[in-house]
C-alpha cells in the first residue's frame, strides 16, 4: 500500500499538456511527406518505390497528373530516398474530415524522356486548407474549447467504442496508449467503452476484412444516434498496403460512412488525439 503510494509520488505527473503544447515528437520521426510541387521533375521513381500507391501519376495527351494520397501513405520515407524534391516531415497531425482533403495533385506537361516539367496547375490542395488545430487561438486553449463542445453535445463526455475490422494490431497498440498516463485521454472527458450501445463514436481500424464486414455493420447499427465514425490508419482510411482483395473490402468508408480520417501507419497517439478532437468539432456542425 505504502509502496504503491511511494512509487506514485516519486514518479510525479507524467501527463503531457497536448494540445496546449505541441506534440513531443522526435525530429527524426517520419510524419507526412512534403513534395516541392513547383520543382518536381519526375514522379516515376517515387511512384515506383511507393509500396502502397500513395504517390501515383497518370499520363494522358502529353500531360501528367501526379498525386500524393496521405490516406494510403505509410510514412515509410522510401520516396524521399529516391526523390530529393520529397521531404519527410515529422508532422503527424494529418486528420481530415473528407477523404479528398487527404490527397493533393498537380498537373505537368510531359517530356519525351518520361520526366515532366512546368507545372500547369498547382497542387489542388493548399496546406492552409488542411484542417489543423489552430494553436494560437487567443485566450481559450483549444483543449478547453473541445471540452466545452463535448459538454454541450454529450453531457460532459464522449464515449468511444473501438473496433478492429482487420488491422495488424499496430493501430490498436497506439490506441491503447491513449489510456496511458502520458496521453491520458480521459482528461478530455473521453472514455473507451465496452459496448457500442454506450458509444458516441466508433473508432475503426484496418482494411475491413470480408470476415469482419458483418460484425462492423452490426456494431455500427447498435450505436445510438447521433454517432461519429473515425477511420484510423492507412488501412482504415484507404485499405493501405492490403487494398481491396478477395479477403478485404478496403477502407472503412467502403462499408460504413466515415466522419474523420486519421492517416498514419500507425498514427501516433498525438495524431489520434488530434483526429478525435477534430471529430468532436464536426459534431457541433451537424
Amino acid at each position, binding site marked *: 500500500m505504502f*509502496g504503491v503510494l511511494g512509487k506514485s509520488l516519486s514518479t510525479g505527473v507524467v501527463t503531457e499538456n497536448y494540445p496546449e503544447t505541441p506534440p513531443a*515528437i522526435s525530429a527524426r*520521426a517520419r510524419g507526412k511527406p512534403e513534395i516541392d510541387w513547383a520543382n518536381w521533375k519526375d514522379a516515376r521513381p517515387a511512384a515506383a518505390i511507393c509500396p502502397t500507391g500513395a504517390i501515383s501519376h497518370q499520363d494522358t495527351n502529353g500531360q501528367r497528373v501526379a498525386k500524393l494520397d496521405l490516406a494510403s501513405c*505509410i510514412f515509410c520515407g522510401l520516396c524521399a530516398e529516391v526523390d530529393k524534391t520529397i521531404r519527410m516531415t515529422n508532422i503527424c497531425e494529418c486528420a481530415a474530415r473528407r477523404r479528398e482533403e487527404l490527397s493533393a495533385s498537380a498537373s505537368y506537361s510531359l517530356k519525351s524522356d518520361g520526366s515532366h516539367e512546368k507545372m500547369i496547375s498547382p497542387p489542388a490542395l493548399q496546406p492552409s486548407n488542411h484542417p489543423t488545430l489552430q494553436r494560437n487561438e487567443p485566450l481559450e486553449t483549444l483543449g478547453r474549447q473541445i471540452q466545452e463542445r463535448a459538454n454541450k453535445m454529450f453531457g460532459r463526455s464522449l464515449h468511444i467504442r473501438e473496433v*478492429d475490422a482487420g488491422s495488424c494490431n499496430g493501430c490498436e497498440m497506439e490506441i491503447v496508449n491513449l489510456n496511458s498516463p502520458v496521453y491520458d485521454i480521459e482528461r478530455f472527458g473521453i472514455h473507451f467503452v465496452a459496448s457500442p450501445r454506450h458509444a458516441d463514436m466508433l473508432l475503426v481500424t484496418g482494411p475491413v476484412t470480408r470476415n469482419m464486414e458483418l460484425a462492423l455493420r452490426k456494431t455500427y447499427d447498435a450505436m445510438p444516434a447521433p454517432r461519429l465514425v473515425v477511420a484510423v490508419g492507412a488501412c482504415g482510411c484507404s485499405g493501405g498496403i*492490403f487494398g481491396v482483395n478477395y479477403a478485404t473490402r478496403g477502407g472503412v468508408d467502403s462499408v460504413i460512412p466515415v466522419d474523420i480520417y486519421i492517416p498514419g501507419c500507425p498514427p501516433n497517439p498525438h495524431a489520434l488525439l488530434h483526429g478525435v478532437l477534430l471529430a468532436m468539432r464536426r459534431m457541433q456542425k451537424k
Partner: protein
Amino acid sequence: MNISTELLPILTGLQKRFRGRIEAVHSPRANEIYVHAKLDLVAGFTAHLCRKWQARLVSLFADDARETEAAFHLYHVFALDAAHGFIILRVPVPPDKPEFASLANAIPGVNWQEREVQDLFGLKLIGHPNPRRCALHDDWPEVHPLRKDFDLRTQLPPFEGERHKFIPVEGEGVFQVPVGPVHAGIIEPGHFLFSVAGEPVLYLQLRLFYVHKGTEKLFENLPVQHCVRLAESISGDSSFAHATAFCHAVERAANVDTPPRAKFLRSICLELERLYNHIGDIGAICTDVAFATVNMHCMRLKERVLRVNELLTGNRLLRGMACPGGVRFDFDADQLKALSQLVVELRPDFDSVVALIENSSSTLDRLQNTGVLKPKVALDLGVVGIAGRASGFDHDLRRDFPHAAYDQLKIAVPVYQTGDVQHRMQVRIDEVRESFSLIEQLVAKLPGGPVRMEIGELPAGATALGYVEGWRGEIFHWIRTAPGNRLARCKVKDPSLQNWPALSEAILGNIVPDFPVVNKSFNLSYSGTDR
C-alpha cells in the same frame, strides 16, 4: 554437399532408414536441408525424426507448383534444436488426386495448419480428427485462394449461411457464453464460445481468422522490395521481427550475408521490440486482476521505449527500419547515447514496479495457479515462445539458431515448469532484464562499417527459410522465388498460430472472469494467426 556437421549424422541415418524412398536431398544452406520423397513417406519419416531426433514439426504448408512441376507440394519444416538445423521434407500431391493424410492425431500441433492447407489449396485431409473449415469461414463459397489460378482481386459473392458451426455442449446446468468477434477491450477480433457449468469453464471453442487479409497471396503479387513493408503489417506488435524474418529469408535465397553492424542493429531493434511488448503485457496482466497502478507505470515505461524507437528508426513500432541486406538507418553517437540512457533509467524503474507486484499478495493470489498449461500438454501442442518457456520447454531461437548478432552474445533463457499466469509473467520479467543486459552488450560491442548491402535481383526458383525469435516466440518466413524479383510463395508462420489451441487447454476448470488475464498472459496475435 554443404551440410553442417551436426545435421550430417541425422541425414545419414535417415538415408539408411529410408533407403530407396528418399528421392533427392539438397542443402542450399548448411543448416537447411531439403529431402524430397513421395507422399506415403510422410507419416513414417515424421514419426522417426520426432522420436529418434526430437525434431519439432514447426511449419506445415503447401505450395502450388502445378505450373513448373505438375503437382502441389507439401512442405514439412522440422527444427532440430540440438543440431541447430532444419530438415524440410517436400512431397508432391498430384492435382488429379488432391488429398493427403493428416498427421494431427500424432502431432496435435499441426491441427490448424493442416486445415489451412485444406481451405486455401483445396487439398482434402484424410483422417483428420476435426477437418472443418479453419482459415475460411463456413459462409465462404468453395474457393481456394492460394491456388495459382485464383486471382488475388477476385470479388466473392455476398455472405450467406452460417458463419461457423460450433460443437454443441449439452448437459444439466450447462450453458454457453459467446464472446466476440467485437470484444469489450481494445483488442483484435475473434470469437470465443465458452461452455460453462456454473462459473468453471468446461470447454472453450475458438473461432479466429476474422482478420484474414489475404497476406500470403498478396506477397505473390508484390515486388520483393514492397514485400518487406507488407511483412511489417503481419502483426503490428512484431513489425520488426516479422520484417526481419522475411529479410532473412530473402538474404538466404540470394546467398548473401549482412554486414556485422547491420546484424547488431537488428538485434538491438529486436530487443527493443521485446522490451516494449513485455513491459506492456506485464502491466496489462495486472490490469486484468485490478491492479491498475502497475499498468499505469508499465505504460509510462513502455512509452519511454516507444519514443526511443522513434528516435532511432523514425517510427515508434520500428517500422521502415528493416530491409533486405541489412537495415535502412544507422545509429549515430547521440542515438546510441539515448539508447544507453534508456537502459540506465529503465532498469531501476522497472525493478521497483516489479517489486509492487511481488509485494501485492492479492495480485499474486489471482495469478498463481491460474490458467495452468501443463508441460506435457504444452509439449504435445508444440507450444513455443513465452508460453512454452513457462511450461518447461527450454528453447529460444536466439540461442539455438543464432541469427542477427545473437551468436556474439550469451543469452540466459528463463524456463519454468509451472505454466500458470504468474510464470508466463515471470518469463517476461526475466526476459526484460535480460534484454537490458543484451542491449548494453550490443552497444558496447557494436562494430563499425556499413549497415546495408545491395542484394541485386533474386535468383528464380530458390527456396529459403528465414527465422527470428520475436518477443512472442519463433517466427518463420519461407519463400520460393519467381523470375523478375518476385515471389512464387511466401509462407508466414507466427508463433500465435501454434499457441492458440493451448489457450483452450489452459482455461479449462478456470472461471470465466479469469479468462481475460489468462488470455493476456499468452497475448497471441490474431492478425499474425489469420494473416
